[in-house]
């Protein structure tokens, strides 16, 4: 049975269900205990599972992730919360040098089943240090998986998959979607597999690849184009590493036009990788250059006027789609 809940509640539901299912799962992070986390995601978990399964940690991101790696080596499945995705830089070494290399340097004799949850993204009046989109840093490193749900359904199902995965998974939850992405979420134990994109809207003229908060804006732009006679297929990647190449290429073979939309900055964002892959593997299917609608190579400003200027939105996406259709 599915009922409508928010993205935020869906994350909490996944945590609670996984903690009930598997006593080796525990949560740790800043303010996650009695306070319930900066966004209220872990509300009630300490009450239900006790101090040590919903563990308040000092402001020590590196230690939070290092502790998670240590616990994973003894069969636990820690879910570390970064209060903001921006703070993940303070734990960067423990992710990219420690967790990501562990299996490789152990000659394949060990796994590192940790999840690092990170609230990311702008459009929430966050300014420079509460708005960043760090996905490319982690997609760029081997040994990690990266997921970025856009719906409440996926927020739950992908977190379950991340917790059950035997690799370090960076789970990027978009703050803009916490209460805005409300939708059906199964009450049961439904897992959304890592590595599978979802087609959010079918179309035969343009393939638009996006993820996270930009799915909403892209769907809005696609609806506008539809009224103008252009049918856009919107693919929600859901998993950024490993991204679903098959789904993107299959759609492109149908539409022969590709746009990539992301809130992350342009240079070496996911758009660059997807574009290059399409160039290498489906060059003959391209009727037009790949177009990218992204954040400029800029920090995220605090002023609403400035932030609006930088953020991709339905208007900017629709403009790009029109150009692509007319090419």
């Amino acid at each position: 049975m599915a009922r409508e809940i928010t993205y935020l509640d869906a994350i909490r539901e996944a945590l609670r269900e996984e903690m009930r299912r598997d006593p080796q799962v525990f949560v740790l992070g800043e303010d996650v205990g009695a306070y319930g986390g900066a966004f209220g995601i872990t509300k009630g978990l300490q009450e239900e599972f006790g101090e040590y399964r919903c563990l308040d940690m000092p402001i020590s991101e590196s230690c939070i992730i290092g502790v998670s790696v240590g616990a994973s080596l003894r069969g636990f499945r820690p879910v570390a919360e970064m209060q903001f995705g921006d703070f993940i830089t303070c734990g960067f070494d423990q992710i990219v040098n420690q967790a990501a290399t562990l299996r490789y340097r152990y000659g394949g004799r060990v796994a590192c089943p940790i999840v690092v949850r990170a609230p990311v993204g702008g459009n929430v009046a966050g300014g420079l240090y509460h708005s960043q989109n760090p996905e490319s840093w982690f997609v760029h490193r081997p040994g990690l998986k990266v997921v970025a749900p856009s719906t409440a359904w996926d927020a739950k199902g992908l977190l379950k998959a991340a917790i059950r995965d035997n690799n370090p998974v960076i789970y990027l939850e978009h703050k803009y979607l916490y209460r805005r992405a409300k939708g059906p979420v199964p009450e049961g134990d439904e897992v959304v597999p890592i590595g599978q994109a979802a087609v959010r809207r079918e179309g035969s003229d343009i393939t638009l690849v996006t993820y996270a908060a930009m799915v909403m804006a892209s769907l809005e732009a696609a609806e506008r184009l539809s009224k103008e006679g252009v049918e856009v297929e919107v693919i929600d990647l859901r998993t950024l590493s490993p991204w679903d190449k098959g789904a993107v290429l299959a759609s492109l073979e149908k539409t022969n036009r590709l746009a990539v939309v992301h809130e992350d900055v342009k240079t070496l964002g996911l758009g660059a990788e997807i574009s290059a892959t399409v160039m290498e593997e489906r060059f003959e299917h391209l009727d037009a250059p790949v177009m990218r609608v992204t954040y400029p190579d800029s920090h995220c400003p605090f002023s609403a006027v400035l932030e609006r200027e930088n953020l991709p939105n339905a208007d900017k996406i629709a403009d790009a789609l029109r150009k692509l259709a007319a090419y």
Partner: protein
Amino acid sequence: MASIKRYKFKLSNEQLLEILYWLKLIRAFDERLSVLVRQGRVRSGVYSSIGQEAIVVGTCFGLEKEDYICPLHRDLGTFLMKGVSPGVMMAQMYAKATGLSKGRDSALHSGVPELGIFGNTSMLGANTPVAAGLALTFKLEQRRNVVLAYFGEGAANTGDVHEAMNVAAVHKLPVVFVCENNIYAYSVPIEKSMAIEDVADRAEAYGFDGVAINGNDVLAVYQAAQGAIARARAGDGPTLIECKTYRWHGHSEHDPAFYRTDEELAMWKSRDPLTTFTTYLRHRQVLTDEILIEIDQRVIREIDEAVAFAENSPDPDPSEAATDLLA
């Protein structure tokens, strides 16, 4: 022959001779590695512990199999004492397929979960949050096991060591922090990197006991370690043991160590942990010439066998250069 009585933690004559064996084996292993790297048989990644063996032996002696160690880059001997064969360790140094990491990385960057050995990265001090995580699981499972976390006086200045000590103190985690103070962090002497004389003093600031001891006296190290381990097993939390010592070789075998004087080196060589302990055992009439010859022959045989094993082991299969990245 009388057993040692003047210490709290008593050792039988057999145990004393076993300690001598370990000291000699580790010394011989490092001496051989020094030759092998000069011969070009071992490519790099050799960080000699010569002069510091008493710390490894004094802390690891008597550990239980389930106890975990998180060694620093110079502690190859801990791997041997925890049960990895000299042959496998030599193959690891040779980057052979039979080494712990199957050629993926050198030195001590690989671990053995079933033997309670964690292999750190090159980021010194990054092992200590992992140690805290391992210790957290012992606490959660109400086991009486301990974790030994090793770091140098150089790594003592990293954020990770600070974060880990703090977290271990807050939750009274069963960690023994072993600081190997060999005066030089690569080339920089301690007085250029900290304004205090004893790293051990820092423990008080975190809320647990710290003690500075003669790290070249294996029995002093053993006594201090056993005391700290007993407290950790009893649930009384962490201890910091600072072992004052000196490395005879450079930071790595490629470092000629021009930054220190011959007089200083000669002074520390006069405090050789092996000579000191051997003299002591003779004085206690535990060690005879026959036993000494027997131990020396055993050590040479084991090192020869280890080198032969490594030499005869296959190189890693090129097809495995980019495998074992994900579980």
